């Protein structure tokens, strides 16, 4: 049985790495006694599948993890127990990580890393006024192509990244600066938040950055990685709770 969970990563814990969070999950699974399946071989490890890595320092309210459970285990959760799972796991997670959704998915579901086509972000730009950001956003949105050179697998690669910018707008101001909402495609190479920021103005400093949604594309329609239709919007919405 494969279970997909949605979880948040907010507050101080945002300074941990993707790898740190993976290790937290391995311990939490054991603490709550979830009958996770283990890989075979010389050094067995629990079968956990993570989605797109979140940069150290970024928050998220839309992280996902797939967990393979041992179908032969007597501790395999019943439907009722599955409903209670988010609260049970959240209680064992460190502050700042919280499970906000849970569903059983087919074991042959495309991996999160391949299935997710785009992510939405709230990006705070420190110490820059909204109108200055507006101007830069307008320039990026109006551009026909945006060619950047970046390192991929140790090589310099030149890409037109304009197609990755699905939406970009100033949405308000914060204590520390201006808040921008961005919807960025992730396939095949994706555009990172830091790369977008450099396109807007290389001198600007990133403040609080939060991933607000991840989307898969099925027959041209956007779906959240958890089953069940969720209306795509351009604002934060990943608050569907299973409990």
């Amino acid at each position: 049985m494969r279970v997909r969970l949605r979880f948040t990563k907010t507050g101080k814990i945002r300074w941990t790495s993707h790898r740190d969070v993976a290790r937290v999950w391995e311990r939490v699974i054991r603490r709550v006694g979830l009958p996770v399946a283990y890989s075979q071989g010389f050094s067995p490890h629990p079968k956990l599948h993570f989605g797109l890595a979140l940069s150290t320092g970024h928050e998220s309210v839309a992280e996902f993890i797939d967990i393979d459970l041992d179908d032969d285990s007597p501790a395999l959760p019943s439907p009722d127990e599955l409903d209670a799972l988010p609260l049970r796991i959240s209680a064992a997670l460190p502050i700042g990580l919280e499970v906000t959704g849970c569903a059983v998915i087919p074991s042959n579901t495309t991996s999160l890393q391949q299935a997710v086509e785009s992510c939405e972000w709230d990006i705070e730009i420190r110490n820059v006024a909204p109108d200055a950001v507006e101007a830069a956003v307008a320039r990026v949105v109006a551009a026909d192509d945006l060619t950047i050179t970046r390192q991929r697998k140790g090589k310099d690669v030149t890409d037109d990244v304009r197609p990755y910018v699905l939406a970009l707008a100033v949405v308000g101001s914060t204590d520390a600066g201006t808040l921008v909402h961005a919807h960025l495609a992730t396939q095949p190479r994706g555009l990172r938040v830091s790369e977008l920021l450099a396109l807007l103005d290389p001198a600007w400093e990133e403040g609080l950055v939060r991933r607000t949604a991840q989307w898969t594309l099925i027959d041209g329609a956007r779906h959240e990685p958890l089953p069940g239709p969720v209306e795509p919007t351009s604002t934060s919405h990943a608050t569907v709770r299973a409990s």
Partner: protein
Amino acid sequence: MTVWTELEPLLAKVQKPARYIGCEDGVYTPDHHAGAASWLLAYPDTYEIGLPNQGLQILAEIINERPDGAAERTYAPWGDLEELMRATGLPLFSVDTHRAAGDFDILAFNLSAELTYTNLVNMVDLAGCPIRSVDRSADDLLIGAGGHCTYNPEPIADFLDFVVLGDGEEAVGEITEAVAAWKQAGKGDRLEILRTLAGIEGVYVPRLYDAVFGDDGLLVEVVPNDPAAPATVEKRTIADLGEWPYPKAQLVPLTEVVHDRLNVEVFRGCTRGCRFCQAGMITRPVRERPADQVRTMVSEGLQRTGYDEVALTSLSTADFSGIEQVVVDTVNDPDCGGQVSVSLPSLRVDAFTVGIAAEIQKARRTGLTFAPEAGTWRMRQVINKLIREEDLYAAVRSAYSQGWRRMKLYFLTGLPTETDEDTLGIATLARNCVEIGKEFHRNPSVTVSLGGFVPKPFTPFQWFGQNTREELQRKIYLLRDELRRDRGVQLKWHDPKASMAEGLASRGDRRLADVIEDVWRHGGTFQEWGEHFDLRLWEEALERAGLREEDFVYRHRTEDEALPWDHLSAGLHKDFLWQDWRDALAEVGLEDCRWTPCYDCGACTGYGIEHVVASAVPPAGGSQGTGQDLTVGGEVPVTLLPSKPAPVGARA
């Protein structure tokens, strides 16, 4: 007051920001109220090195359980953050609630490595506190230290207000009480609290003592200059480890640290009597934790933390009475799902059996390290590590037969009376181990790890003149050349350059404070990190202070000369240590006193305490492989544990 708002913007600019956020599972919420003495417990190295330190975690729990105490933790900020902190005026802070160091009453360090001393000075400075005790006023932090290094605190005596010798479990409560009372009374005269602290057993207040030097530059004595200071400060020893089931909630960090697993201390102290080993000398006698308490701490700890590995820690874990049963019970505990691995650090080869090997490799094979320490039987008699070659080969055979393909052998070089034959004996042992491996596997491998010996206070080798850097290097290269063609043996060694600085800090006197401050002022922090160690800084600092390394490090000391730590006591009689030193030079070994008559070293008799072990029968391998008949005991001071030990959490 929290400095998180000031700290957070800096985190985006540093490596490994998770070092500074705290948020560990199991962390206490400290209650800082006006009547509570607040401790900032510090480990003077990075978070990854310092977090697993059990001493710091034990003391934090004990203090936070007290109504008159509150404790948080801090670690040395890495250079990138330190630079930003100094640029923005951000002081040293706790990782628990990100409280500024200056808002605490006490900043206390755990010192387990001498090369961290410059980090200590740096952290006191980052805390906004004058680095020398004499320059501090009543409002400044009280700077304290404990841990193995503090058996000779003289090189850092000028930086410290108080030092705790020995086990801290009881002393920390008494200090808390004294400081809380002083705080409630409005923190008057600073000397007043220092005098009060000096009256607590096991607490040394360096300012209340003068170091007297002769015309020849040699130390004459360290004597009290105040009636509140005792002439000799005796270490503290907790009589029964079973009464202290700490840490009750071992911290689980969010980011990767060394020893990232559950650690359960199964006993404290060791009486094997290895003459190079300071830990074995200063932590006597042996005090075992009741086996049932170990089992409870392991199973509750694994469930609470989610770790899949537990280390049973001590100075020689295979000596724990009934160790095999504890390992079997842990590995086969149904609650652990068959996925728990047990690691046994500090395994003696004469107690490593096929049975233990078979059990600990059930879940996952962890690394295996044996420490023969020296290459020939003659040399091992000198250092009193009396394991025979057959013992080593039997242990290695057990491991290979149970599926291990590689193992690590730990050796020291630069030992007293060491000849090139002894050094080259290491190559012979390693080769023979590889040959045994070939009976079981195609490409067995053995890693030889070679460390330079640094003599430590309160050991029989405290009088021995350390090998020079050049001599250590020569021996390392001798062995490297010898092993050049051996495919199965990899040689790794510690850079002998740092051994000189470690020697200075280990056996130096109060004059070293100028040297340590000088090295720090010239940027010499993180000196225990190979890439940061800078020998030139130490040599130049010595020259500026008018001191010679020869006098502190390389010179053999004489029986009648004063040692900088003579006014402190680890319970060991100085004449016992001197006799053991003479025995070493005569190549005479000394059996483990757990199962043989008492030698009256002083550690038990001086404090009216005894060994606490559950078994009157020595472990496999007997008494150090000497084949001595152990059934003929004498006056053996052993307290057998009661059959029903106290459960975890219960306090006598």
